[in-house]
């Protein structure tokens, strides 16, 4: 699978987790792609932490509005029935448990559900932005990430090594290899990419992986 296929696989699988009526925050990058794969009949409301609900697609060329951007600073639109608010209200929504699902990337996730996603000491310190609030406040935290780092090292660890974004918050990890539940200190393999053996996935995972009794294959239709 090339990078694009991996990203589509992950985003499409995460989209299956969303339920009709959910309020959802999609992080910058891969998580943003999730919006394109939401099944028909499932209506979700996208929240943009810079201050609105009802986030719509990019505007047509020439229709951009400087006053309407997403949390990545990109021009977007607002759907009918959306609403704007200030940053305090936006994070009241986020912290107050009014976002059902937040989807974001990760540098590391560990078996306790700890998440490291915001800094590599001495290297990358962009700031946490809204991530710490989002993962603490959202009812469900889904991480979408490649299974390995660019250097080929596991991202799913027994214990995070990088500075944490939050403690015990991750509920589900979706990678190009697997769908993994994180619950009460245990990572459980729910689904696997049929191109990888369980052993191969375990070899690529530092944390211990329990196998679900209902272990299934990820749907690769249209990807290969």
């Amino acid at each position, binding site marked *: 699978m090339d990078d694009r296929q991996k990203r589509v696989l992950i985003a499409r699988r995460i989209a299956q987790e969303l339920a009709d009526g959910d309020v959802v925050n999609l992080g910058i990058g891969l998580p943003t792609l999730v919006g394109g794969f939401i099944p028909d009949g499932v209506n979700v409301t996208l929240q*943009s*932490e*810079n*201050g*609105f609900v009802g986030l719509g697609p990019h505007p047509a060329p020439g229709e951009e*509005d*400087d*006053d*309407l*951007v997403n*949390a990545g*600073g990109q021009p977007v639109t*607002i759907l009918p029935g959306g609403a*704007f*608010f*200030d*940053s*305090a209200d*936006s*994070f009241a929504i*986020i*912290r107050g448990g009014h976002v059902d699902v937040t989807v974001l990337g990760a540098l590391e996730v560990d078996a306790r559900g*700890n998440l490291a996603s915001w800094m590599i000491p001495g290297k990358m*310190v*962009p*700031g*946490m*932005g*809204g*991530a*710490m*609030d989002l993962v*603490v*406040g959202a009812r469900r935290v889904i991480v979408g990430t490649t299974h390995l780092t660019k250097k080929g090292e596991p991202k799913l660890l027994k214990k995070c090594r990088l*500075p*944490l*974004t*939050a*403690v015990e918050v991750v509920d589900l990890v979706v990678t190009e290899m697997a769908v993994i539940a994180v619950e009460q200190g245990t990572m459980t393999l729910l689904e696997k990419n049929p191109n990888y053996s369980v052993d191969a996935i375990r070899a690529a995972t530092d944390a211990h992986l329990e196998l679900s009794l209902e272990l299934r294959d990820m749907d690769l239709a249209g990807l290969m």
Partner: protein
Amino acid sequence: MPKIMSQKEVIAQVQEGSTVMIGGFMTCGTPVNLVRELASRGLHHLTVICNDTGLQGDGIGMLITADAVKRLIASHIGTNPETGKKMIEGKIQVELVPQGTLAERIRCAGAGLGGFLTPTGVGTVVADGKQEMEIDGRRYLLEKALHADVALIKAWKADRKGNLLYRKSARNFNPLMAMAAQTVIVEAEEIVEVGELDPDAVMTPGIFVDFLTKGVSVDG
């Protein structure tokens, strides 16, 4: 009633060493004309409180380029590589604050509260040096109010009493900062007569606004 004046005149309210809050998210909702005037002042010891430092040379990035900022309190600096570079060089002292905590700390100051308990940051470096409390089995950090000497605010419409409307996602931190600073300076795209704004629609009441300047021209 706020005083209406040019950006050049009004920016004199900011002095060397001032703590300045500046609205905006990236460059959306940032009072760029006021920031440009401020960047041209040749100041070097400002403390700036804002969500992010915009883009390199754009928005609040103009203040970074001008070496006007000594200390920065923000949630994100990744969109402006110059900020990170100057931080590493020790030219700017940066305090990174989770975005929701930043918004709430600013609101706290405006609302006369001393602080608040948030679950955000528990178990992370954000908790370092902060008091932790447990309520009903959940852990919280005590975060304190964040005040400023001056706030630079971008509004869409203002009336001559200083009542403000913001537009779309350009609202962001602006209404919070308008309540949290000693002196509030507003750059509005349009200034209308008293009575033209619906009192139900006003987003920041005019009682908070000290100075008003028109965004595009320089003569208000």
